[in-house]
């Protein structure tokens, strides 16, 4: 299995060349930064084509089993590809839920039929997947899901609604958490997990317009929707455990993901670059001492985030509160991004008031949009306020509210 450094270097070079040659030129519209932000057909098709191309070149799902469409190669190869993709900042892989959530889950817990049916089409982006966990009015309290699934012969009848379904209107399938037993002794015990079709009678999606003015999420409605009983994954009543397994895949806590980056990280270096080329009051913004101080603060913060994750690999240096870094990552990263994007907007003088779609807006308006989109992470998956409660109570041991 182990290859020489030289072989890996050769492979890395080959990958680099392929991406340099094959990455499509930027389109004449603004691209989203993650699959959660895909809002137009043009964006969708551009990104789906790109994933297909990457898959066909053999650079996606490289470590997944060959019999289902994967590459059957050592994980190291995919890691090299992923690193090159990130380094070259190529567009992300749109089928994120399929590649990082559903695919690993199916490979881990699915039946042979499910593997045959789904895996290859996840990699090729022929079938897009979406996620049905959150519900309106229940915020991020997954365990409280109220969408009902009632078994009726060889079908389940689904009723209820899911919200924040990214790519809901493009997806062929949804990973769906629904309540099969409302009288179960614990609320978790009443849940089951489905690989649900999205194009069935009784399933409708309604796009949600975001504060950016774009679309990018749906609300999904189930009205007596009938789905085959073999959509169930895991046993009935085991939905909570399956969901937790899925989330573990998503977090990268366990292996199994198909690879390929799933979002475009914003780096402080890009804001530094912006500060170099925008003028503030007649001189480049980067010459302003207050701008410089802020940029340094952001650079420090960005590095702190990365160093935290370097430090978790040293148990001796995290032993006192082992969950502190893992549980604070989302809070810190999302708030960091919000502040960074807001700052990037502030560098633009009166042109900060131009917006996406304007001919003259700086960098196609990505900073304005990214600032607005940043709230999806400071709110979604438990608001920053809830995160602080969790840290206070579970990590520091402070009393409950």
């Amino acid at each position, binding site marked *: 299995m182990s290859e020489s450094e030289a072989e890996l270097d050769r492979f890395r070079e080959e990958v680099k060349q392929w991406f340099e040659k094959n990455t499509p030129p930027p389109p004449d519209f603004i691209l989203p930064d993650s699959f959660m932000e895909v809002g137009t057909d043009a964006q969708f098709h551009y990104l789906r084509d790109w994933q297909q191309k990457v898959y066909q070149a053999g650079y996606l799902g490289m470590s997944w089993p060959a019999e289902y469409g994967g590459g059957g190669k050592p994980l190291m190869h995919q890691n090299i590809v992923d690193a090159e993709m990130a380094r070259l900042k190529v567009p992300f892989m749109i089928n994120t839920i399929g590649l990082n959530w559903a695919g690993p889950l199916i490979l881990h817990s699915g039946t042979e039929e499910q593997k045959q049916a789904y895996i290859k089409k996840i990699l090729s982006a022929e079938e897009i997947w979406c996620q049905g966990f959150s519900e309106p009015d229940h915020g991020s309290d997954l365990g409280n899901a109220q969408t009902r699934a009632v078994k009726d012969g060889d079908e389940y009848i689904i009723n209820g609604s899911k919200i924040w379904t990214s790519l809901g209107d493009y997806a062929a399938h949804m990973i769906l958490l629904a309540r099969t037993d409302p009288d179960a002794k614990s609320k978790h015990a009443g849940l089951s997990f489905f690989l649900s079709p999205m194009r069935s009678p009784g399933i409708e999606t309604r796009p949600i317009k975001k504060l950016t003015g774009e679309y990018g999420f749906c609300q999904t409605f189930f009205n007596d929707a009938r789905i085959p009983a073999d959509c169930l994954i895991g046993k009935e009543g085991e939905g909570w455990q399956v969901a937790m397994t899925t989330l573990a895949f998503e977090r990268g806590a366990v292996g199994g993901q198909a690879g390929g980056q799933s979002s475009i990280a914003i780096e402080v270096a890009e804001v530094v670059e912006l500060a170099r080329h925008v003028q503030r009051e007649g001189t480049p913004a980067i010459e302003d001492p207050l701008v410089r101080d802020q940029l340094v603060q952001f650079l420090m913060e960005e590095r702190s985030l990365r160093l935290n994750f370097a430090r978790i690999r040293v148990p001796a240096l995290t032993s006192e509160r082992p969950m502190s870094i893992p549980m604070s990552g989302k809070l810190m990263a999302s708030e960091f991004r919000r502040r960074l994007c807001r700052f990037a907007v502030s560098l633009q003088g009166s042109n900060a*008031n131009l917006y996406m779609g304007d001919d003259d807006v700086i960098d196609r308006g990505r900073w304005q949009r990214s600032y607005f989109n940043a709230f999806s992470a400071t709110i979604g998956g438990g608001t920053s306020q809830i995160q602080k409660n969790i840290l206070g109570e579970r990590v520091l041991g402070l009393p409950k509210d």
Partner: protein
Amino acid sequence: MAKKLTIEFSEEQAMMLDTATAFCSEKSPVAKVRALLETDAGFDAEIWSEIAGLGWQGLAIPEEFGGSGLGLAELVPIIEPMGRHLMASPLVPTTLAAQALITAGTAEQKQRWLPLISAGSAIGTLGLNESHGDWDLTNLICEASIADGQIILTGEKYFVADAAVADFILVSVRLDGNPALVLLDRAAIEQGSLTREVIIDETRRCYRFDLTGISVAASCLLDVEKTMASLDLITRASWLLLSAEIAGGIAGVMDVMIEYLTTRKQFGRYIGAYQALKHPMAEILCQYEYSRSQLYYAASIFDTDKEAEIALRMSKAQGSDTFAHAGDRAIQFHGGFGFTYECDAQLYLRRANWCQYQYGDAHHHRRKLADLLL
């Protein structure tokens, strides 16, 4: 011990504030605001007529031109509730254009336009910004030259408010190395020279205005000797009226937040009961009070010189930051709903951004204040 600071606010201004508050609240419910987002003009012509009925367009225009002859400070208690209710109208650009004419217009220009403005029959606006995004209005790329009694213009102006419906536009250009203002009426505005901009605040309409190819009679030039004074007045007036819009905007976004915090429950309690939301709200309240105090002090001393500049810049800086922060928190505190276009918080966040980056952001004003104060 610094000198005494007093805020002057007359009975008449108090009445004006009451009237305007009631008017804006009634005429600009948020459903109306949202309906106007979809329209080309962005405002309701009928409301514009009603405003004329109230005499707001002529408030700061001398009586000889059909106005009330009051000061710009009198507009503050009108613009503040307009900001609170996001009421759309070309009142501010028209007022600023009128002030520019009052300070630098020729007798003929004043005679032609000011009575029409006072009567609510003409909309005026200004083309002052340029591609560089600099807030210094004398940093001009657009140029003019005079030949054969004609002024020939080149360059592009940005953020020309309500240009598509304006009866005239005053544009700033460099002429013989100095700033000059040129009045262009509808007839002079070439077909296709206006491009609607996509701006962050969707309640407004702004246009890019391509001057190249326009040439008008030399009589369209404003008094060149008075141009600097006029630009200075426009700048100060903009700070004042923007600060008023900002103070109103903060109040408006607080309304939206308080409504949600007192009606939305989570984990069985109204979310406003959580200190994580309650305390930031209290902080926003305190900063709002600061903003409003700075605003009305700036209005009180608007006509003084260096002191007014200090007060106006403080007002703009204080308000801009508070509004931007309140808008940001408004999204956050609404949770998932806050992330949708449907939530009114976004209307205010976008407005807050707009106000921050027009006529100098807080950071800019603090830098200028440092030079004035330290």
